């Protein structure tokens, strides 16, 4: 652990959804931390629980979902808070939300109200974070924010509706909204997935620029290894609700230990690879959320699967190096950082 206290420290977080068909363990024993002023990337396939993890931090898990155990220590303006222990409707939590921890959503078109102007939605946020602010000042500051995120002629666009903007502009509005409270932690949930490739790079540039300027910590969620390589300092590879491997960017890209990480890296096209070599797709698909394989969650797709070991128990987290850990029996013999904790017995109404 770094000598300094991290901004956010998530420990053994479990967020379950209690549906009529059974319990979905969307996040199941997730631990990681976001140090001050660093960009942490979470990478994983769709359905691995990245978005649920982000929403757990913000306390906006929709029913029938609930954070069932674990802790999320956040070192903010209101002292050290364990967000997992707070009721999501709690006043302290609500004041943290948006102002100190904010989030950039994936789909700008549906994440912004179609019947309110851009300004209306932004001014509302600004006035919420600074209660002394008058409407006029909020409007001025709003124009400033829009300019800061690179929106041309913000004086007119402030009165536009979301459907009048292009995809890139919409995403910039979302970014403006997310930074309007000068947050300490900015969560970006696949912010570039819904927009054109050409604009993706610009939005990433904007985010990097904002990070450097405001020195805020970022939690960057994506399924795109390329984006991670470009932006993140540290990487968490998630699989089926838990950490498969984590380490610095260099650790993960140069020395991946977990077969899943290796498979992910093989599946991206790269420069310097022989032309006409087939891209390696990962065999099989993410298991049915209601029916996890016993043992290691990746065991049913793993090329190094060892019967009797991998399907018997969940592997513990092994240390690879000072900065890198991985959850795989291939590392047996290494130092165990954390034993795999069994899921708690919980019921829907608990």
């Amino acid at each position: 652990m770094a000598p300094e206290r991290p901004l956010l420290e998530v420990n053994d977080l479990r967020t379950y959804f209690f549906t009529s068909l059974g319990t979905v363990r969307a996040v199941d024993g997730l631990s990681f931390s976001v140090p001050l002023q660093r960009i942490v990337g979470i990478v994983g396939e769709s359905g691995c629980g990245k978005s649920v993890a982000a929403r757990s931090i913000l306390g906006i898990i929709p029913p029938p979902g609930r954070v069932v155990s674990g802790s999320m220590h956040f070192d903010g303006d209101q002292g050290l808070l364990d967000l997992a222990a707070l009721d999501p409707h709690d006043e302290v939590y609500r004041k943290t939300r948006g102002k100190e921890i904010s989030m950039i959503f994936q789909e700008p078109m549906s994440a912004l109200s179609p019947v309110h102007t851009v300004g209306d939605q932004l001014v509302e946020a600004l006035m919420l974070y600074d209660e002394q602010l008058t409407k006029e000042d909020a409007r001025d500051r709003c124009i400033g924010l829009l300019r800061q995120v690179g929106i041309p002629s913000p004086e007119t666009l402030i009165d536009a509706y979301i459907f009048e903007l292009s995809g890139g502009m919409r995403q910039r509005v979302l970014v403006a909204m997310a930074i309007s409270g000068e947050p300490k932690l900015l969560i970006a949930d696949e912010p570039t997935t819904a927009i054109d490739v050409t604009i993706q790079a610009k939005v990433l540039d904007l985010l990097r620029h904002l990070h450097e300027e405001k020195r805020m910590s970022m939690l960057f969620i994506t399924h795109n290894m390329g984006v991670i390589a470009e932006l993140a300092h540290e990487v968490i590879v998630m699989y089926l609700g838990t950490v498969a491997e984590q380490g610095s960017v260099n650790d993960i890209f140069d020395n991946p230990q977990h077969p899943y990480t290796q498979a992910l890296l093989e599946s991206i096209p790269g420069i310097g690879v022989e032309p006409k070599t087939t891209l390696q797709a990962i065999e099989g698909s993410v298991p049915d959320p209601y029916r996890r394989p016993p043992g290691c969650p990746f065991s049913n797709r793993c090329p190094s699967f060892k019967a009797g070991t991998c399907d018997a128990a969940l592997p513990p987290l092994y240390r690879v190096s000072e900065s890198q850990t991985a959850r795989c029996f291939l590392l047996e013999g290494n130092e165990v950082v954390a034993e795999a904790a069994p899921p708690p017995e919980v019921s829907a109404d608990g």
Partner: protein
Amino acid sequence: MATASGPVLFQEERVQSTYDASQWRLMRISFARHKLAVVGAVVVVLGYFIALFAEFVAPYDPGAITFVSPARSNQLIPPKLPRIVHPDGGLRWFFVHPLVEMRDQETLMVTYPEDTSVSYPIRLFVRGAPYKLFGFIRSDIHLWGVADGRAYDDPEKVRLHLFGTDQKSRDVFSRILHGTRISLSIGLLGVAMQFVLAIVFGTISGYFSGPLDNAIQRLIEVLTSVPTLPLWMVLSISIPQSWPVIRVFFAITIILSLLSWPGLARQVRGKVLSLRETEYVVSARLDNAPTSRIMFIHLIPGLMSHLIASLTLAIPGTILGETSLSFLGLGLHEPAISWGVLLQDAQQLRTILFAPWLMIPVIPVILFILAFNFVGDGLRDAADPYKS
């Protein structure tokens, strides 16, 4: 979930089956989860069963005036439930006391006190008025009746009128059971016609955009702007009084359907518009498949599940339409028996104050409208098994 105990296994089995089941299977599972819909379905099935076997299920002949003598008019007998407590204090199988018809000397009103000295049991499968089931099976066995040993046409025959009798001495309960026949079949038949109209106009309008679509859209707009009931009223007044019941029945059904398809057609059109752009339809079009084939093989099956749900929800409207028209005296007339025809008797405040049981036909109307609504809701949810 981690332990392999019984209930968990069961749950996993169920989960497994939903995960890779066919669409129809998913629909069935989803429908079964909707408890009210299942109850509604049971009521509906029971209703159509009664409609088919009304003669057998009903204890008495619904049309014929109950056999009367100078001493007995049997008019407006109040409803009566069978008894189980005998005057001697003991419990018996269901039985009835015969009713004595008396005229109050002061008010001149007829009253029906019970003669508690005698009692007759209720029996299943008793002989009663003869009938022909489906028009050719001769029988005189009824599901239940009072066993008093007298012939069905004996004026002294002891009867149990669960819902009382009307002004013409007829058994309201038997009439309601027979009423299911017209009231429920007009729902089905009307919806079948709407179904055809909606499919034809909706698919054409959605598939061929342009002037044809425009024309149909305008027609739909006009039909939805004119309030239905007044229009129904004029149309049904055009039905000649001299027509036989069956022809009037079809005419009313056509009138009700002619004005009710636009809503459905609009839904079909919307669905066709979205299906038209799906890959499988586009590829069929690129393959130069004939239009009729695209429509019948590709488009209409895709609409089916939604359409069935919408149709079920349209049945109550048709049932209500017939009931309203007949109630106003513009629809079916006696000797036809439908719930609306029965309710004609309940039009006068004076009548219902004296004989409130003539309002009982209201209950099946409400019951079946509810049942169809529940079934339709369940089907609609089931048509979208992936939604939630």
